Each structure stands twice: as C-alpha cells, then as structure tokens.
C-alpha cells in the first residue's frame, strides 16, 4: 500500500462526513493504493456512530474506536500501529487542513524526506489566543532544539514508514515527533499548506497549555540529548555544586582558622557547603541509576541506528 492517512477524531460529528468525502475526492485523482484511518478518541457527541455509518460504504476506511478519551498522541500511535502504507500522513479532523495538501506532503516524502511538516503560512485563527503564542513557542522550540521548523503545531505531517516505528508516542509527544526523528538522523523538510477557519465543532486548545509546553520542551531537549548518556548530563550539572559546596566550606574553614573574626552564625556557611556537596553527590548517583535504566530499556540509539535504512552501510 502506498499511503495511509491517519485522522484522530475527538467530538467532530459535524465534520467527519465532509472530511471523508474530501479526502476521498483528492486521493482518487491519483493512481495509488491508499487507506484512511479514523481514530475515534472516546468521542461523546455521536462521532462514533457517524464514522460507523461512513464505514459501511467505504472499504478503504479503517476505524479504530478507543474505549475512553486518551489524547491525540495515543490516537496517532494507534493509527500508526494499524497503518499499512509506505507513507503515513496525519491530519486534524476539524477540516482546517485541506485534504488537497496530502498530495504535496506525499510528494515531498517520496522525494526523499523522512519527515515532512505542513507549514500554515497564512493561519485563520485568533491572533492573540492562537497565532502569537504559537509563533513564540515555535521560535523557542527551534532555538532550543536546533530543529528549524516554523510550524510544529500543524497536524498535517507526513512520515516514511521506517522512521515511525522507532518513535513511541505517549502523553502529547506527537507535537515533538520531528525533533525525536531528527535525533536519529532523519531528513526533515517543510511544505507550505493552506489553512481554513473552523466552521463547525469546537477547538480543544487554550492558553492554559503554556507551562505544559514549556515543561515538555525541557523534557524533550533533555531526552533527545541525554537519554543515551545520562551520566554526562547529571555529571555536568553536578559540577557547579561541587564548586559551590567547596567554596562555602572554604569560607567556613577560613573563619575557623581566624577565631577572632567568627560571628555567631558561621554554621550557615558550613551547612550550605555540606548541602551543596550532598546535592552534587546525589546527582552523580542519579546519573549512575539512569545508566542502569537505559541498559535494561528498549530505546537505544545505537540499536535504532543499526536498523534505520538511511544510514550508509
């Protein structure tokens, strides 16, 4: 099979019919074999029934129904698991992505990229609630991770099959797939896509996600850089505390040698010194603990690199 289109759906009853019709219309223009996978992420508004209704007349549609709402990452993971296509394209179910763009994504993947991100050049969303926060977040993420993508939040993305099996999706990781993919050496590009305002249904995002995105960014950065060498991270971060601890202890020792100068509360320097030395030591211990965890884990960079096809052998 050439192409799998994966659409996570959560309460999009008004949109699914139109969505399926348009995807089908676009894909039929091409002479390729394809499938569409609708993942119903525990919808409560009747989306499930609507999809089942479509499925009756659509042999190339696969339907996956979750038993509760798990989140977009989990929905995508289920879709990826079921997908049989050589190229996997994900998109939103809210009709803000244009199914016509699937073909452009597909072409870009076929021209030799592993991950192709849609780039909504002209966004039709609220300026202050969506566009400005999103632009800031994208700039920050690109700066921190050194993966230059202007619109990470766009759901319309395409992947080559062999990259996706090395990426595990959970807890809103879907936004960071390109960054994880870059960490195992895949080639990434962007393709401009069109964007439409929402006509039906409700948006599921708000500004309250800011601190979550920040923490996720720190997490991804640390995971990508250090998940195969945690001792480096923990060892490095312990250095300032070795230094601080010794300095404070030095102060205390100096006071100790010059009793005439000692005020009553020199215990502060002694205490802080011991505290920081203790922290430095425990960070190193954490690093060691992590080496053990990674040894028993199943996500090893060296093993993945041995498996991916784009490494020159």
């Amino acid at each position, binding site marked *: 099979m050439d192409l799998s289109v994966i659409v996570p759906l959560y309460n999009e009853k008004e949109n699914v019919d139109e969505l399926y019709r348009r995807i089908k219309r676009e894909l039929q223009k091409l002479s390729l074999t394809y499938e569409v996978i609708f993942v119903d992420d*525990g919808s409560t508004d009747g989306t499930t029934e609507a999809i*089942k209704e479509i*499925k009756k007349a659509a042999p190339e549609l*696969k*339907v*996956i*129904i*979750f*038993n*509760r709402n*798990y989140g977009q990452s*989990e*929905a995508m*993971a*289920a879709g990826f698991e*079921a997908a049989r296509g050589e190229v996997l394209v994900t998109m939103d179910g809210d009709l803000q992505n244009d199914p016509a763009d699937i073909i452009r994504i597909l072409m870009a993947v076929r021209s030799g990229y592993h991950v192709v991100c849609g780039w909504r050049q002209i966004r039709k969303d609220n300026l202050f609630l969506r566009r400005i926060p999103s632009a800031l977040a994208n700039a920050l993420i690109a700066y921190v991770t050194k993966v230059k993508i202007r619109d990470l939040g766009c759901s319309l993305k395409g992947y080559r099959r062999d990259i996706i099996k090395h990426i*595990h999706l*959970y*807890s*809103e990781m879907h936004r960071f797939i390109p960054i994880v993919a870059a960490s195992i050496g895949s080639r990434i590009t962007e393709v401009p896509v069109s964007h439409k305002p929402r006509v039906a249904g409700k948006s599921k995002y708000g500004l309250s996600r800011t*601190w*979550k995105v920040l*923490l*996720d960014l*720190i*997490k991804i950065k*640390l*995971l990508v850089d250090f*998940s195969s060498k*945690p001792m480096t991270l*923990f060892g490095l*971060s312990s250095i300032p505390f070795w230094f601080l601890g010794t300095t404070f202890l030095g*102060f205390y020792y100096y*006071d100790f040698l010059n009793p005439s100068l000692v*005020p*009553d*509360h*020199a*215990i*502060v*320097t002694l*205490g*802080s010194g011991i*505290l*920081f030395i*203790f*922290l430095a030591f*425990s*960070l190193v211990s*954490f690093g060691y*603990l*992590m080496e053990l*965890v*990674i040894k*028993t*884990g*199943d*996500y*090893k960079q060296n093993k993945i690199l041995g498996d991916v096809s784009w490494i020159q052998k």
Partner: protein
Amino acid sequence: MDTEVKIAVGSEGIVKQDTEISVIVPVVERSDNLERLFLLYYEELSKIKKSFEFIFIIDARMKNAYDEIRQLSRKNPNIQLIIFPRTFGESNALSVGFQNAKGRYVFTLSSYLQVEPEETKRLYDALNNNECDMVICRRSRENDAFFNRVQTFLFHKILRFFTGTKFGDISCGLRAMRREVAEAFDVYGDLHRFIPILAEHQGLRVKELVVKQRKEDTCLRVYKISTYLYRLIDIVTLFFLLRFTYRPMRFFGLIGSILILFGGAINAFLIYNRLFTQGFALRDKPSLFLASLLIVIGIQIFAIGFIGEIIIYTHSKKGKHFNVKEMIE
C-alpha cells in the same frame, strides 16, 4: 513471583470447557467458616443453572484453612485448590486466580461473608446483559457499626480527592468481570483493592450495584494503626500511577522548578546585597541556608521527574497505554 505454586485440582483435574463462572476466593487474612461460605454461594450459583468452578487460593499464613478446603474439594468436583508455599498476599492470590480461571465470567469473593449470597444473581445478570465489563458491590450499611461507616466514609473521601473516583465501596470483595478483563489485569502489591478504579482508568465500563450487607460483616472492625497508614500510602501510589505514569515531569518538574526559582530568588537578593550594600554579611543569614536548601531539594525533585521520563522513554515499548474498544477494517 515464586513459581513453586502447588496446584491440587479436585476430581482428576477435569475442568469443563464451557465453564460459565469462575469464583476466585483468596484466603489470605481472615476467614469465616469456609465450608459455610462455599455452600451458601454454591447454592445461589446452582440456581443460575450454568456450570461453574470455585478456585480457592490459600496463602501460607492461612495453613489451618487448608485441611478444611481439602476435605471440601474431595467431596466437591467444582473446587480447584491452589496453595502458596509462602505468604504472597491478596494481589498475588488474585493474579494466580485470574490466570487459572476458565469461566466466561470471573467472580472474586472475599473469604468472609460480606454480601448476601442471593445478590450474585444480580451481578451475573448485569454482566450477562452486557451492561458493563465489571460489576462491583456497594454494601448498604444501614445496620453497620457506626465506626465502620465512619472509616469507610473517610477512606472514600480521601480516595475521591486523589483519584476522582465516584465509587463508594471500593474494598468490597465481591466483584464480577468478564474473563478478558481479569486476564488483562496486572495487580501487584496492594493494588487489588483498587481493581475497579484501575479498570475505569483503562476505559472499561464499571457498574456499582447496591447490595445487602451480610449480618456477619456489620461487626465492629478496628485495624492496627499500621493498616490505616498502609491504606493511605496505597492511595498515594495509585494517585501517581493513574495521573503521572506517562508524564512524571508534569508533577515533579513543576514542583522542582517552583522550588528552584523560589530559592534562587532569595539567594540572588542576598548576594546582590552582599555585593552592593555596606556591612551586609552572609554568614549570619539563616535565609541563605534556607534558600540553598530549597534549591537543593528543587533540583533533586526535578531530577527525579527526569529519571521518571527516561524510564518511560526507554521502556515505553513494553507498556500498553491505550485500549481499543473496536476496530473495523
């Protein structure tokens, strides 16, 4: 777990293929007269007119119950007997029971009388009419001892605060579920108590039936203080397992960063004054010590969150974190 589990099967080890109900009775802590318990429930299950089996799992601590059950299983072919060589606890007993159950539906039953046996029919019906994947019981406590009601109420208040569950009687031992549900469970430690909450978290349909409490169950129960502490710790375990298994950074990262920022701010203030204010000494400022402590604790908590993330990131292939209800190809 130790695999050395002796299995003594009643009646030449023949279990019929079309067993409808498996009743698992973990005998781990205290038990009433097991023969009476068995006969009472046996009688009720016979009324359903489907084949059934009883699986008694005897923990090493309950050796004295062994002969009693042994006698019983000789007389009765429906009893399967599993004896633990050492004390493994209720979660392990249930797990072993689940793995050995043959029935279409699996019932669990406490080893002392909690619920009027005639209620089993209602549990069976709820499952059989496909109203839910699991049925649990809520004992109506009109005649229960006052202290029992108070402690149950408090326990469930705390439980609800941490997990958001709406169940009112999580610890009732009489539960029923489809076998696929039982097989999918990974209960260890003290998690057996929270099976309904775990099930609901996995998206299964759990139904709570109000049932008549057995008179024997209404006697006053006062446990050791340590027991109450264990229950509290169990709730905390559950809280982290349910909310943060796949996102430890969301909890530890947040708390850690707040502490670091707070301590950093205090220290920055002190150091600024030390540098630019005349006669401002650091060594007599306990706040320096406090701020350092906050930073140290903050970094540790943050690091623990990151450790959690690495564990999930490098082991997530093994974990199953979503459940598909239906797949139409």
